[in-house]
């Protein structure tokens, strides 16, 4: 079973996603946080396999900072970014920072679940509309 940490500052979205990702024996949200500090405070108190982290919480790139902090605490952590931001430059930046994958909030649940399972197995995942390589900058 994959244990999930869910971090998003919008309670309604977070609680709905946590409920829908509840798959007994397969997936389970074992911890939730609405802030970067809240997520960091969980470390050491709660074991999770994959983190699902919103990119823009109280600050535009707070998810990126959280990703770095979580990886500093646990270099083997598998963290997926969940966002409204479709920019390829963001996808690249987050993957370079060590994200295990990048999902849009318009993703189907099936895609989120697949991404979580892939991340738990050490694979990378990028949402299909964002997979194409951008043309190189001139």
């Amino acid at each position, binding site marked *: 079973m994959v244990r999930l940490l869910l971090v*998003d500052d*919008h309670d*309604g*979205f977070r609680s*709905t*996603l946590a409920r*829908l990702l509840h798959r007994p024996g397969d997936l389970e949200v074992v911890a939730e946080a609405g802030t970067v500090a809240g997520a960091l405070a969980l470390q050491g108190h709660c074991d999770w396999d994959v983190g699902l982290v919103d990119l*823009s919480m109280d600050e*535009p790139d707070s998810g990126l900072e959280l990703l770095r902090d979580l990886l500093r605490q646990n270099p083997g952590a598998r963290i997926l970014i969940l966002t*409204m*931001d*479709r*920019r*390829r*430059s963001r996808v690249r930046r987050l993957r370079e920072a060590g994200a295990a994958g990048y999902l*849009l*909030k*318009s993703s*189907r*649940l099936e895609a989120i679940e697949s991404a979580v399972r892939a991340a738990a197995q050490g694979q990378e995942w990028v949402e299909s509309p964002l997979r*194409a*390589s*951008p*043309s*190189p*900058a*001139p």
Partner: protein
Amino acid sequence: MTDRFLADLQALLCLAHEEEIREAAAALRRSAAPGLLPLLQALEEVALQNARQLQEVVHIHEGDRRLMLAELHDRLSAPLARLHLLAEELTRSTPGPDAQRILRHSEAVMDALQRFLGEQRTVEDSGDAAQALRAWIDDFSAEADIRVECELPDDLGQLSSVRSLFLVRVVQEALTNVLRHARTGDAVVRIQMSDGRVRGLVADAGPVRGNGRVRRGFGLRGMEERVRFLGGRFEFESQPDGTTVRFDIPGF
């Protein structure tokens, strides 16, 4: 006072950038009678004050724009994302064509909002117009599936912050127009800096969607206003076989 001196004095008061004002005032001082120097000094101060206020207005406007996008993200995107999850839940709890239709619409709304936020997001806050534009064009090109042939001078970073910001905005808007109005997978962005001027072109060779002409809407007006604010010339040409935006801005 000669007519030429008066015309130069009038031009000084219309300048919007500190360096230009100081240069123009210094040139006027060289040809002014000694008795006019205190007046010239006072007028230079007025022109500088106006320029600073204009700069402030531009930055306030930009701040408002960022705030509006942040609010849009916070107040609209999260509830919509939740609604989208609930629509998907509905397709599971009550399968059928109605639930599927709701889910498809919710996906379309989320998609439109994500694209809009991506288009409107300004550049990374690097302060370097060339770097900012390249990053934005890179994202735009991938997202819109439009290949952008791009020529930017390396010294674009020398531009003042207002010029730099407006230049980025004009190119953003012109390329967004290509996506909205042209049936094409190719566009060109060419910017050159020489002889104290910044000259730019954004063009496509695609047939215009709809009735074959681009309507003069807010986007076009915004581009023109920005270029004119910088004392530049703006040209827009829309033909059935393509659209071209040209601008020519004085000073770096």
